[in-house]
Each structure stands twice: as structure tokens, then as C-alpha cells.
């Protein structure tokens, strides 16, 4: 196999916490990420799953260089990017982009779609290929939005559509890696399915690499190539998706999988059979 595109080695992130004792308090730290390592190959999706407080989001932010590591390294394509500054960091940002959970709070409500999706290029002082209008239209088409709405504001879109804008914004700089931080968690089931489909399609057609953060295991099953299960800042199990889901090795993974509510498989089978029958009857 080829070299991994994104590699994190022994990531540690500590946050200072408010100790007791006012001015005289001793400094205290909380270790949110505790020695986490992972690799993602080009065109694949690594899903980080875990419950709240597991450190999965912090890990994602470390990998995207939105937070600085306490120790450990992040490598992109073999290059150590842990300590990049200014222009070098800008270059890294055009390779690795992030899509956040809540599109409405992560998109500037006073900016039009066009301004939102072209902003990353402007910040990096790169030309907008083909002009802002045409560029925005083509991006919107790629993520399944009506290009005629390029002058509208985020609030004028539904949740699913707004998240598509978030994805368009991430794609504007043609990144190789997209970090999806609970990118579909806030969406309704129907919309969520569409956004998952979009992400899969983009990966298939453009070879994108995803670091996919989610607490919803069923969603992860739909999109991941590999899965890393996190709890209390550590990865307790990592492996190919079906291996983790079908034959979990770690106690915690089993507990997590057992807890997920399921529609009875026999109902599912019967529904598909019924649906097939009625489809056959109508055609």
C-alpha cells in the first residue's frame, strides 16, 4: 500500500483548567487527547467515533491544525505540519479543510453564498478561477445546490442546504483532506441521508480523503473505510470498518455497538420484500 496521506503520531492535547484557589491556585491541566495515533490513506475515510468527552473532536481539530498539539506530530504527505506558521500554514489549509456540525453558526450570516465560498481563496490570496460568479455556480452545482441562489444568505436555506454550503466552502480551495466534525449530526434523517450521499459521491468522483468525526455509529457504517473508537482521550480500537462493526475486539466497542437502538432485521427484510413486491406490481 502507498504511504498514508494524513498521519497523526502520539497526539496529546492538554487544556488548562480552572483550578481552585483564585490567584494562588496551582495550574491544573486536563488531558483531552492522550497519545492518539492514526493514519488515513488517500481516498479513504477514517471515522473517529466516541461519546461526548471522548476527545474525538479535539483530535480532529489537532489534525486540522485548528488547535496546537501539546505533543505529537501531524504529517501531511510525509511532511511534518505540526509547527507550520503563516504562509506554510496557509498552504496546509488549502490541503486540509473542515466542515462543522452546525452550518448556521459556522457560516457568516451576513455574507452571501458567493462571498462565503470565495473567502478562503481570498484569504490565501489566490485567484478565483473563472471569476467569483462562475466559480460559485460550479461549486454549488457540485454540492447539489441551485446555482441561481449564489447571492442568498445562509438563513435563507434549510439545514441540509446550509450544510451543503459548508461543504462547498471547504471544497473551494480544492483540498485533499476534508475533516467532517459531526458534519451530519444536526441534520434530520432525510437530509442527513442526502448529505452522506453527497460526501460519498464527492469521494468517489474526486478522490477526497475524509477524517469523519461522529457519535452516530449507524452513520459511520455508511461512510467509513476504517474506524477508530475513542473513549477518554484514547483510541481503544482501530480497524477496517466491517471488522470493527462485525467483530469488535474491545469491551468498550462492544458496549457501544450493543447500545445502538435497531430496527428488527426481520422487519427490515420483510419491508424490502414488500417494497419489492409492490414495485413489481406497479411496473
Amino acid at each position: 500500500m502507498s504511504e498514508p496521506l494524513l498521519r497523526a503520531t502520539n497526539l496529546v492535547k492538554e487544556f488548562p483548567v480552572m483550578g481552585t484557589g483564585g490567584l494562588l491556585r496551582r495550574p491544573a491541566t486536563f488531558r483531552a487527547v492522550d497519545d492518539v495515533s492514526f493514519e488515513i490513506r488517500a481516498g479513504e475515510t477514517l471515522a473517529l467515533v466516541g461519546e461526548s468527552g471522548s476527545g474525538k473532536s479535539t483530535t480532529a481539530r489537532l489534525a486540522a491544525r485548528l488547535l496546537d498539539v501539546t505533543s505529537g506530530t501531524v504529517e501531511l504527505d510525509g511532511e511534518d505540519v505540526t509547527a507550520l506558521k503563516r504562509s506554510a500554514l496557509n498552504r496546509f489549509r488549502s490541503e486540509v479543510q473542515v466542515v462543522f456540525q452546525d452550518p448556521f453558526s459556522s457560516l457568516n450570516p451576513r455574507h452571501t453564498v458567493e462571498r462565503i465560498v470565495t473567502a478562503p481563496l481570498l484569504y490565501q490570496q489566490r485567484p478565483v478561477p473563472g471569476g467569483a460568479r462562475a466559480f460559485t455556480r460550479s461549486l454549488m452545482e457540485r454540492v447539489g445546490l441551485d446555482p441561481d441562489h449564489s447571492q442568498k444568505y445562509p438563513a435563507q436555506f434549510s439545514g441540509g442546504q446550509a450544510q451543503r454550503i459548508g461543504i462547498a466552502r471547504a471544497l473551494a480551495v480544492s483540498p485533499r483532506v476534508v475533516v467532517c466534525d459531526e458534519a451530519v449530526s444536526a441534520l434530520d434523517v432525510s437530509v442527513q441521508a442526502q448529505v452522506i450521499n453527497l460526501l460519498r459521491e464527492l469521494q468517489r468522483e474526486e478522490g477526497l480523503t475524509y477524517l469523519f468525526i461522529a457519535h452516530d455509529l449507524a452513520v459511520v457504517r455508511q461512510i467509513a473505510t476504517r474506524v477508530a473508537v475513542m473513549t477518554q482521550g484514547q483510541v481503544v480500537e482501530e480497524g477496517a470498518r466491517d471488522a470493527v462493526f462485525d467483530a469488535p475486539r474491545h469491551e468498550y466497542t462492544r458496549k457501544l455497538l450493543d447500545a445502538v437502538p435497531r430496527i428488527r432485521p426481520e422487519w427490515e427484510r420483510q419491508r424490502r420484500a414488500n417494497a419489492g413486491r409492490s414495485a413489481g406490481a406497479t411496473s
Partner: protein
Amino acid sequence: MPRFLLTRVSSGLMVLLLVCLFTYLVFFALSPDPAVQICGKNCTPELIDQIRGNLGLDQPFWTQFFLFVVGIFAGRTYGDGAGAVECAAPCLGYSFQSSQAVWDMIVQRLPVSATVAIGAAVLWLLAGLVGGLLSAVKEGTFLDRFTTGLTLTSMSIPNYVLALVLQYVLVVQLQWLPFPQAVRFADDPVQWFLNFVMPWMVLAIGYAAAYTRLTRANVLDVLRENYVRTAYAKGLPQSLVWRRHALRPALTPIVTIFGMDFAGLLGGALITETVFGINGVGKMAADSIARNDQPVIMGVTLLAGFLVVVGNMVVDVVYTAIDPRVRVNA
């Protein structure tokens, strides 16, 4: 709790020391040479030097500051020999213009300022809370809109204008209030009380308006909280929902603001005291500025800083009693 108090007091003291340092630094850098002022008309350079020496003004800044801080706790003596001036602890400086220790000057006037502040605080709390609650209960009605208009108007009227208008209307025209006369409480309590009515009103009205708006906004916010919905869903009567679940959370933030506002006012209401000729700390400060009596200005500044810091500490302690989240996190 004691541990929390200890840390709170220790950081409070630290802040006070910084307030001292900053105040001293400002006056050290900005004010004209006090020695020249004390020296008077028939002054020679030698005399000035001598006075400087007596006051310690020839010392470096840090030495002067140290002497000042020590003076607060232990008292100090300015100069020596026959011209020596005693300044007992807590020595906040000595006014050579009034030939009095600043602390004594403050202590004489503090009760008057406190009377003004306490009376005004009672007034504005009553008016603000009642007005805010009524406004919130009757949200969107005529009463609510009327209150909102009234608060906006009263917040935009400057104190001194209000004071003059009130004096003219209440004393001159309507004659509801007598002309202010200097009386002691023991001699003529009624006249004494009536003397203070106008300052109280003038001082209270701006605060009352602000507190009305704050109370209204807080109550409306809290009524939208999920736990208020829960309280209704439990079948609690409306009165209990309001009293227990809406009022306490809504009024808690007001404690903070009140503590600071009140502490700030204890140190004297500059404009109101001056306009009404009330001989409090505020008027003293105003007079001292006019006379450029530097030690007094500095003393009053320190007092104000001290009161605000202490007020903050009191608020913090009170907060631990009324908000359980603070209590445990502390």
C-alpha cells in the same frame, strides 16, 4: 466555603494594592509639585527643597510608594522637628491646604454620602424591581410600553438638569418641600429627612430606569427557560411558578449589578452632592479638584477603588449563597 473566602479576599487585597499603585503612579506623574503649592507666595528654592525633603518628595518613586502604603497601615509623620505633621493610620495622605489628614476628612463626610446612597438605593431598587416585574407580567400591553418609554426618557436626562428642575418645581412652585436647611438629624428629623428627598430622587431615577429594564429583560428571559415549562408541566400553580422558578433566577444577576453600583455611590455622588450642596465625599472631591488639593483627590480615588473592590467581594460571597452552581464550582 472558608477556603473560597480566603482566596477571594487574598485576590481582593491584591487588586487593592494594584489600585493603590496605579492611583499613586497617576498622581505622581501628572500632578504639579505639591511642595510649590504648600510653600505659598514668599517662596525660595531652598524652602521648596526643604518641604520636598519633609514630604519625602525627593525620594525615588518606589520609596515614596512604599512609605505611602506603610502609612496606610502604620501611620506616618511628615517632616520633622517643630513642623512635623502627624498622620495617624490609616493615613491616606495629608491635606496641607486644609491642615487635616485625608482620612479624617473622609470620615467626617462619609456618613452623609452613605445616607444619600442608601436612600437612593432603596428608592431605585423598589421602583426598578416593581416596574420591571409589572412590565414583564404585562408584556406588550400599554403599561409595558409606557414603562419602557418612561425609562428611556429618564435615562437620557442628565442629573444636574433633573436636580434643577426638581428644585424649581417641588420647592419653588409647588412648595411640597421646604428649602434645604442645615440641620442635624437629632435636632429636626423631619427637616433632615426632607433635605434628602430630592437628592435621593435625583440619584435614584437613572438607576431605577436601568433596573426596570434589566428586571424586565431578565424575567422575560427566565420565563422562556425550559425549567419554567417543567414547572408548569408539574402542575404547579402560576403564583408558585413565578415566585420560585422565575423570580430567583431573574433577580440573581441584579445582585451583582447592585453591589457594584451601590459601592460606587458610597464613595460619593459627585454631581448630586455638588448641586444640592450636600457636604459629602463627592462634594469634597469636587472642591478638591477645584483647589487642586492633590492628596484629597487621591484619597477619594483610593476610597472609591476600595469600595468597588470590597463591593465585588461582598457580591461574590452573596452569590455563593444564592447560586448553588457557583457554590460548588468555587
